[in-house]
């Protein structure tokens, strides 16, 4: 497996994903803010949360990149389109499984069952993250396609 490539390009691919997501957010396409969501696991100040969340996001991105690298090694090939395909699988799991599950463990995220005692600050993402804007799934798909394609392009199979 391309360990050196994983160490470097995992970060690069995560940075690309972050740029796409943040760009879409700034362009008013989505309210999904992954650094904020991840960072509010540890602090409720949005600005501090974004800083902490960015670090967490890089770590999570790096962990996922390990899966991509292992898959490429197993298949004996690494191409941008294979990476993009894995990205598609990745985003499907993220939108349908990971994001909804976050509601159950995130201390500052409300659920659709929240009641008057809820002091959670973040609204639940809803199905496919649609509560954060109707274009959220599209943005997430594009970002993960870019992430996967970057890894497919940059990682080598040894």
């Amino acid at each position, binding site marked *: 497996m391309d360990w050196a490539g994983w160490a470097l390009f995992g970060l690069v691919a995560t940075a690309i994903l972050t740029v796409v997501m943040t760009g879409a957010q700034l362009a008013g396409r989505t309210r999904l803010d992954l650094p904020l969501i991840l960072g509010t696991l540890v602090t409720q100040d949005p600005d501090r949360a974004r800083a902490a969340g960015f670090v967490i996001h890089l770590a999570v991105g790096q962990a996922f990149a390990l899966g991509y690298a292992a898959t490429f090694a197993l298949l004996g090939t690494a191409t941008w389109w294979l990476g993009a395909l894995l990205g598609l699988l990745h985003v499907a799991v993220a939108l349908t499984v990971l994001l909804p599950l976050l509601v159950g463990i995130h201390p500052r995220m*409300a659920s659709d069952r*929240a009641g008057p005692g809820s*002091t959670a600050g973040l609204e*639940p993402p809803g199905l496919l993250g649609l*509560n954060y804007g109707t274009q959220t799934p599209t943005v997430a798909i594009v970002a993960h396609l870019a992430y996967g394609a970057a890894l497919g392009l940059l990682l080598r199979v040894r």
Partner: protein
Amino acid sequence: MAPTAMDSDVDGDMGGDVPQRHRRPPIADYGLLGDTRTAALVAADGAIDWLCVPRFDGDPVFASLVGGPQAGTFRLGPAGRATLAGRRYRPSSTILETIWDTPTGRLVLTEGMVAEITGRLLPTTLLVRRLAAQGGPVRAIVDFDPRLGRQHRPPRVQHHGPTVVCQWGPLAIAAHAAPALPLEPGRPFRITVTPDQPLTVILAVADREPLVHLDPDTAWAVLLDDQRRWQAWCKSVDGDLPHRDAVVRSLLTLRLLTYAPSGAPVAAPTTSLPEQLGGVRNWDYRFAWPRDASIGIGAFLGVGKTDEARQFMAWLLHATRLDRPRLPVLLTLHGKHPPPEQALEGWPGYAASRPVRVGNDAADQHQLDGYGWVLDAGWLLTRAGQRLYPETWRTLRGFADRVAERWRAPDGGIWELRGDPAHHVHSKLMAWLALDRALRIAAQRGAPRPQRRHWKAQRDAIAAQVADRGFNPAKASYTRVYDSDDLDAAVLVLPLLGIEPLDSPRVRGTIDAISHQLSASWPLLYRYPPGHDGLPGIEGAFLPCAFWLVQALAKTGRYAEATERFTALLALASPLGLYAEEMDPTTFHHLGNYPQALTHATLVQAALALKDTRLAT
């Protein structure tokens, strides 16, 4: 469940023999049941005529309120001749009791929705209703007839033991009674309720998730737990408030109208309750207005409920994110642009008031006043010692910049009239407020010097222009739009702003002119001269304006007048202490969507102003 004595008293299918409802209940007859995710309206005859699932803005399953008898209802009440003997919320709670006297005994319906379900295996929507007889057996009617959505679709029905499950694709409603009843949707029947055995019926709703089945007696215990939680919440409300019970009822109503998963304040749980009976002024209010959130921040802060105030600010920041620095006029419960307005074909409307609308086109208007409300809320939080996060302050600064840039343009105004934009005096005053409060916050939080200079210059320019073109010396009052003779009751916020000294003749003149010339019938006010809105017919008096007048009188030291008006307004509440948006000044019937969050928020603000004035004198 084993057969019970009550089962033997069930008359079976009595569809043809069940008394029909001949009377359209007045709006004020309805009580509000809610769980902070959705809400039901229940009439004095025990019929739930409005319930949307799974959220306030979902499809209705009981909608006979505006959809006619075929739109579904859920009635539990006396079957024959009965007199309404009493109706009340249990003190400091959301549980409603309705009492009827019948020739054979007294019948009591106690009902509520369970709000706090976090951490427990309970349905997301759980309605619990209990009928109890006192003094002798009483014949009661059970009419369970859910119909979904625009087409009043009947459900696919399955019976699982004592539970009847109604399904429409991913949506399911389970009804379960103890003692067991032969519940069959759309087929009302009579039963005899005996003093020794109350009847409990529960409704559990599941949308895109499995139904959670619950024993009715367990559900009843859960509802009582919920009651204790609400009572604990109310306990900390300031005991020195004038008319504390009315204020607490308003606060509870505001809480029930706050969609807990996102924190959005819902303007009202209904659509198209008319502002004129038989008229066309029928709007969908199942959305959230940033203005209401800001007014709610002041109301909750004033009674010491800081968490609720901060939640509204958090919602404002999150929901407006896609539109910044523009502040949307209204949003869906999850911060999206509301769907376009549509008329529902074939819906007869309340009192033949058509069309029944869903969606709201006011969302596309430019309204300047919203920025003022939001910046003022930010200032109230700051003044109360609540720390604004840097992101919050950045957002508020963006709003202030937007006002500084756009205030010279005409806008749609607070009343969302569908005509051309105009230079509304109230909007300019609120633009002044936005920049003034931004400057006050900046004095504590800091902002770049050029930005502050710009805000100050624009604030002073607004003050000069409003004084020049917004004040009519002949009327001795600020007006509705520039260079006009018309008045606008929204301008009653003038004493709250600080743009003029409280003892200024202009402030007093404006209060007096509005209270006289827009008087509907004491103590009510029209919001603007009746009929001056381009729509056919005339709407009712606007209740929030009447409370704003109380607030204005109190703020300017006219305590006795303010108290007199406030007391008179409290006497006009529905029997359960609820208010619609408007009121017919002749019949004093409530009009418009109901209950209305803005009316209840302004009631709280008026009480707080009275308290402040009383303490100051």
